[in-house]
């Protein structure tokens, strides 16, 4: 324990020193060069640590995964597209694809629309700060804690027994004749129950960013419309929404990527059982339960490929932004 403490202290003090030292050192080294060479070299030295980390932890693994996906379980024998055939035909994988589609539509739809609703409405009340903080809270807790919270809400006891889960208790109390549901097991509800948890976690993120955009819509413009006799609905729909559109696109893109990468909530709450498997949880199983590197890699590549269109759209947007700036 003492050595761990010492290590932590050394790192906390050492890393900033190291970083600072690096800057001082490269500047001192560069000074000796002629002015023009200095400016050619400087950006690369400043970028080097970051590019190194990204290269090692993201770019190199991505390339290596593509290679591994063409080999067998132990990465010894070349098997061609066999792992991809598995990924596109195995029944569990087909379920995963269907579920990711559900996530894509409902997770993205609900997070963005609740975030938008929250952003527009909290802008009009005096307790805005409190309301936004409350909705942002789930972002500050881990997915596992969120999973535990919601397992508790979804808890099921057979009909007749006192329900200790809030959802079943409320529904049996309010609707006479309602039969309690095992929300996380019942195939009709479990995927939506999981998506609801993820929505609960991520709405705060959408809310904060959209709220910033709402605040930046010019007040004079909205006021002018009101003076001209526009109703509040028209002001929001006709004037505010078009102005918010770029931000909505950013938020929606981010949420689409999260929907495709959905993992934590599923892993914590059902482990992908009862027909709730998603692509990422299946990949985790292939990797850690079955130790099949080939299949796991192939699934990872498919996951990445699915995010490529989103990435291309995003980069195009960045370009447009740069052009405007």
């Amino acid at each position: 324990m003492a050595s761990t403490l010492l290590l932590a202290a050394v790192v906390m003090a050492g890393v900033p020193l190291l970083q600072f030292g690096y800057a001082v050192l490269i500047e001192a080294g560069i000074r000796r060069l002629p002015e023009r060479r200095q400016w050619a070299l400087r950006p690369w030295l400043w970028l080097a640590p970051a590019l190194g980390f990204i290269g090692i932890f993201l770019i190199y693994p991505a390339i290596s995964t593509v290679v591994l996906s063409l080999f067998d379980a132990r990465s010894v024998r070349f098997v061609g597209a066999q792992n991809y055939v598995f990924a596109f035909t195995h029944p569990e994988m087909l379920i995963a694809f269907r579920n990711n589609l559900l996530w894509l539509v409902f997770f993205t739809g609900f997070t963005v629309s609740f975030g938008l609703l929250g952003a527009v409405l909290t802008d009009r009340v005096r307790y805005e700060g409190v309301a936004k903080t409350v909705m942002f809270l789930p972002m500050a807790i881990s997915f596992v804690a969120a999973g535990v919270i919601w397992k508790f809400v979804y808890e099921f006891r057979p009909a007749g027994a006192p329900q200790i889960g809030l959802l079943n208790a409320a529904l049996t109390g309010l609707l006479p004749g309602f039969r309690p549901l095992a929300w996380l097991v019942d195939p009709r509800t479990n995927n939506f129950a999981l998506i609801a948890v993820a929505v609960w976690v991520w709405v705060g993120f959408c809310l904060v960013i959209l709220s910033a955009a709402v605040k930046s819509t010019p007040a004079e413009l909205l006021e002018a419309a009101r003076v001209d006799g526009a109703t509040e609905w028209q002001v929001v729909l006709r004037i505010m929404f078009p102005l918010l559109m770029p931000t909505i696109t950013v938020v929606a893109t981010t949420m689409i990527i999260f929907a495709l990468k959905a993992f934590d909530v599923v892993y914590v709450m059902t482990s992908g059982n009862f027909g709730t498997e998603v692509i990422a949880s299946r990949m985790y199983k292939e990797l850690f339960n079955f130790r099949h590197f080939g299949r796991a890699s192939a699934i990872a590549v498919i996951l990445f490929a699915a995010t490529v269109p989103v990435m291309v759209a995003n980069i195009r947007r960045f370009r447009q932004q740069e052009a405007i700036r």
Partner: protein
Amino acid sequence: MMAQALRVLRRTPLHAVVIGMCLIWLIPAIGLLVSSFRPPRLVAATGWWTAFIPPLQFTLDNYRQVLGAYNMGRSFMNSLFISLPATVIPIMVAAYAAYAFAWMRFPGREILFTIVVGSLVIPLQMTLIPVLRLFTSLDLVGTYPAIWMAHTGYGLPFAIYLLRNFIGALPKDLLEAAAIDGADPLTVAPMTVTVSNLVNSLGQNWQLLTAAAFISMSVPLVVFFTLQRYFVRGILAGAVKG
């Protein structure tokens, strides 16, 4: 007088929706908090909302048990050792890169920035195998530096992207970005593993799960509340400019 009453009435649905959303976001967490203070046999038998009907029966036993028997205290400290350096390192590394991207002109700047932003969408799972292999060959698996470095690698693209927007403003903004990473749910990894193990091994022992989950929430929540002002403003600055 009449007009004011009408105004209040017209605004009722607005308040109803906002307060309703807040309740949906709060109630599940309150249920967890209340349950973590209830004796096991009651948690398993009755809903948490019945806890406020006298006779009141609250206890600290769940916390005592989780902190003692399940090594929660230890993984609590581990979380801190991981999250602090894992927060500081990426910010510093990203700051240099973001500064270069924002203020320096050099060939390939746009392509490199595109790659950095593009690496945001690489699924974490996709990097696990090669990184694990790399760490194995370097004999680094399970060590603190390995975890710090991995966090740095995974956190960098987002940090660079955000910081690029901040840089050029006051240096204070750097601290705000630190606040953003401080609340990152990823940085509570060992805590996650412990709670996750508890979920699996304890199954239906609700009272222990609730206490464990609340302990794991406490640090990020304290960080969030302390830095909340910067946090929201920090995101605003990035989003508005970006």
